[in-house]
């Protein structure tokens, strides 16, 4: 079965480009504001979209994404609204893959089968659930695969060669390499270390490898894009959203355009990376 993610990565590979993967939190700062940003992401250069499912206790996230989750929850975010954002996005965009990213409890609380059916129905392509390691695959990973959704696993610097096969076994769509030991939005990785890590993972899998955590500028994104099949940017975009809020916490009238301008800059970094490298 070829999913939207498979197709997108195949197309980019054929074009000799890396994927630009963007992260925003659903309903940040509220439903309408986040939809305005979301619908503009593909035109701004996003190849894959990660949509954060807000959670009160985002244990693997740094201050920027924690704050985005809190803004969203304050604005009344629910799983239903997160999926509604995807449904609306899919009315006009049939090709850009959307991956929901977050923590297990809101999914578990809704009920795994109910969640998977609703996510599939909304047009979700994959899931990244931070607190579900391979040891807990029967919880969500296996049911998700059966439901036709990709389950994208995180590999980290602590995932050694002995453990990598277990981590990769039920991964599909792509592998998300967490480039540093730490939380989102913290220290930036060294491109050289990333290249070595990507090569190590690729010895175990033919899946594309996207790299995230700590990428903030077009230059950093370009450096990562030269080393990997994709570069993920989250905190920098979410920070930009935080900068564009009015006193009532809503996105300013020019806010979405400014956030998307940053996304475009980052996208150019990623998309021109290999061209620059070849010069």
């Amino acid at each position, binding site marked *: 079965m070829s999913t939207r993610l498979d197709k997108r990565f195949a197309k980019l590979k054929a074009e000799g480009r890396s994927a630009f993967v963007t992260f925003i939190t659903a309903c940040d700062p509220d439903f309408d504001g986040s939809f305005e940003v979301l619908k503009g992401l593909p035109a701004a250069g996003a190849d894959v979209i990660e949509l954060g499912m*807000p*959670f*009160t*206790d*985002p*244990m*693997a996230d*740094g*201050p920027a994404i*924690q704050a985005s989750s*809190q803004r969203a*929850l304050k604005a009344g975010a*629910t*799983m239903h609204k997160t999926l509604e954002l995807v449904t609306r996005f899919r009315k006009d965009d049939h090709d850009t893959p959307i991956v929901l990213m977050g*923590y*297990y*409890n*809101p*999914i*578990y*609380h*809704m009920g795994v089968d109910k969640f998977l059916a609703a996510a599939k129905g909304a047009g979700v392509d994959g899931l990244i659930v*931070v*607190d*579900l*390691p391979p*040891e*807990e695959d029967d919880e969500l990973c296996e049911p998700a695969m059966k439901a036709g959704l990709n389950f994208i*696993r*995180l*590999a*980290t*610097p*602590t*995932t*050694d060669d002995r*453990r990598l096969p277990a*981590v990769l076994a039920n991964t599909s769509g792509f592998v998300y390499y*967490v480039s540093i*030991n*730490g*939380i989102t939005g*913290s220290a930036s990785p060294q491109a050289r270390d990333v290249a070595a890590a990507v090569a190590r993972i690729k010895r175990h899998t033919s899946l594309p490898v996207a790299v995230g955590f700590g990428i903030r500028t077009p230059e950093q994104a370009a450096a990562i894009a030269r080393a990997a099949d994709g570069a993920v940017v989250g905190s920098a975009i979410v920070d930009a959203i935080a900068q564009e809020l009015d006193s009532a916490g809503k996105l300013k009238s020019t806010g979405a355009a400014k956030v998307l301008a940053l996304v475009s800059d980052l996208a150019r970094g990623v998309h021109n990376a290999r061209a620059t490298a070849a010069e």
Partner: protein
Amino acid sequence: MDAGSKLNSYRTGPDERGRFGIFGGRFVAETLMPLILDLEKAYDAAKEDPAFHAELQHMNTHYAGRPSPLYFAERLTEHFGGAKIYLKREELNHTGSHKINNCLGQIQLARRMGKTRIIAETGAGQHGVASATVAARYGLPCVVYMGATDVERQKPNVFRMKLLGAEVVPVTSGSGTLKDAMNEALRDWVTNVDDTYYLIGTVAGPHPYPAMVRDFQSVIGTEAKVQMQEMEGRLPDTLVACIGGGSNAMGLFHPFLDDESVEVIGVEAGGHGIETGQHSASILGGSPGVLHGNRTNLLQDADGQILEGHSISAGLDYPGIGPEHSWLADIGRVKYVAATDKEALEAFQLLSKIEGIIPALEPCHALAHVAKIAPTMSKDQIILVCLSGRGDKDVFSVAEHLGVTL
């Protein structure tokens, strides 16, 4: 397993996946997974090593002051006019609570694993103080994460930790209480994977923490069983302990779980009353969910977002509970009840006046339940209560609740 079905033993858990029934498990980010697997291996090896037990026993005896006394509370017994009430005096331990039992065990493990930096979370500050204490004793730097709200309301313990050489980091993320402190400790651990040991303070977190902390705390029940045999020549009829995360309760209960004649009661923090929603009773007022590495009963809303607990006692103010408790509730071996803030406050004053013991607000919840059941029991029956901590840390807040300005 069906609820209520009879087991050969209630003491064999968890299984190899770290599960107690459906509860427990290892719900952590991949970065931490290799670390908790290492920890499990190190703990399994330590358990088999007589030198580990000898060192722990030595420190329990000469540093913490164990065994803690089992005390017949004669005047309290007379006051209620029913069952004989015995107090397991964990408040007499070094640092003033049962928390030291776990910290002494885990610090040995940290040293065996070659870790050079200790991190911990704390709510009221009791576990933070115990962690800072053992870190000082072994010359290791210690960082304690504490919700900013708790830092403000538990100033004496914050100062104690600093005196002990620990760095106290106020956590402002989320709601600035214990659960956020735990999130922040996990964020530290994920960032400092090579040198850092995370000293979790209760029977929660990913496997092997719930089982490991239980094992270190089981010294409470193991001692009490022997002491009760010496003093009364028999088992108690009823055990009562308070529950936040549930470590003192699990420590008392576990050695008695297979003694079928012993009724076991855990008392959750009822806050303003379960019906008000303002409480920290995860079993009576929560539902199964996944947080901080394990599946257990949680306070959560209709969308699976975690709710803030409320309790007069900062040490019970946690929206979850150890997974083994959730399982024991499910299978019906342990009965879970709640006591309100008001009932705990009454017990605080009663024990102080009648026995000359100022208890921490946490075990006052257990005492408040004793007040309900002791008068209904006969004089030849025995209740054993875990007096998990002393009340010095609470005198300021109790004064405030009683309208007294110090």
